[in-house]
């Protein structure tokens, strides 16, 4: 579970593990993204997601998701407080991986309960 405060940023290390608990390191054209929204209400193209942060495309407010940063398959997710400007409540945080070596489709890595407090 991830508990965030609306007026403060959030930083998390996200590691992606395979079925044998080995770390998957996204490299090259691989992309990772974090999505915050309500499950079943994201829209076909995530148009109704509340926040989407993908590696290689920081948000204007400064949120980012850096692959293998600093190293060892740790991926640095930073959510800027300015991007947490949606209504406080309970949502889902989806972490997804686009592994170009294994078909070009997004794969779900994890789904966490994401609670935003209006503080």
């Amino acid at each position, binding site marked *: 579970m991830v508990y965030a405060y609306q007026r403060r940023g959030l930083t998390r290390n996200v590691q992606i593990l395979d079925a044998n608990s080995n770390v998957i390191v996204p490299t090259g054209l691989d992309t990772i993204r974090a999505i915050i929204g*309500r*499950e*079943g*209400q994201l829209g076909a193209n995530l148009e109704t997601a509340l926040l989407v942060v993908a590696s290689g495309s920081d948000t204007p407010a400064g949120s980012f998701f850096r692959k293998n940063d600093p190293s060892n398959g740790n991926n640095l997710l930073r959510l800027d407080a300015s991007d947490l400007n949606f209504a406080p409540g*309970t949502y889902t945080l989806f972490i997804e991986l686009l592994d170009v070596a294994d078909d070009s489709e997004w794969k779900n890595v994890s*789904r966490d309960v994401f609670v935003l407090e209006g503080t």
Partner: protein
Amino acid sequence: MSNIVDLSELLLLLGLSSSATEEERGIAQYALKTAESSIKDYLQYNPAQTTYVEFYPQSNVAAFPGGSILETGDTSAYERQIGSPCADELQLKNIPIRSITEVRIDYDGRFGSRPGSFPSSSIKAAGSDYWASWDGIDSSSNLICRDGILRSVGLWPEQAGSVKITYVAGYTKEELHGEDSVINAYPIIECIIEEAMRKVNKVFQTKKKRAGWLGPLASENLGSYSYSSDTASLAKLIGGTSLSGVTLEKLNPYVNWGWSLSGGL
């Protein structure tokens, strides 16, 4: 999958926000879906805001060709005028109405099945030909019609399927989640979650009582771990669509009683 309540909201209240297994997620997801379906069924509409295209009336309204009946007494007979069975009010199926995109009237429209029916010349003017019973203003300063009644400057046609209406009805996500400053539809969400919790707890209780029970397992793989539930087993465990008395009481203010009582006219 539920399109009103996020599974995370249910998992949080079940105390599984950090530890839900694939099996528990599957059970919770199924319970949420059936709870939401039961509640939509009771309300008689989808509370989540949606655009609809519908045809009215659902059946021919006029029961009599004329507008009067003869009543006879011992010594005399009276001709009594009767109210026409068709009316200047049309009860829409989905509430609350948020906007009317378009109304078309074609007396031979046949529910839109006749080629060329409802041409653009059949479009009626909002405000002068028809209007909803706007009874308030939402937090975006838009009109809202809670009872779902559409009024006409004259009488609505009595032929079935001669009125085509495109409209938006239902509550926004903010209103459903109690985050709106004017409209609070949170009791609907609360009921969905409570009903889903009741169903999940029923499965958990059953599971506790049966040693060695594998749950609603359909298949499980270790490599690239996956778990799938058997929906038939889940349906048996979770039960039917009956709602608790408390839920019904909470939902009553949101039911489209007008549609229910009008018999879909």
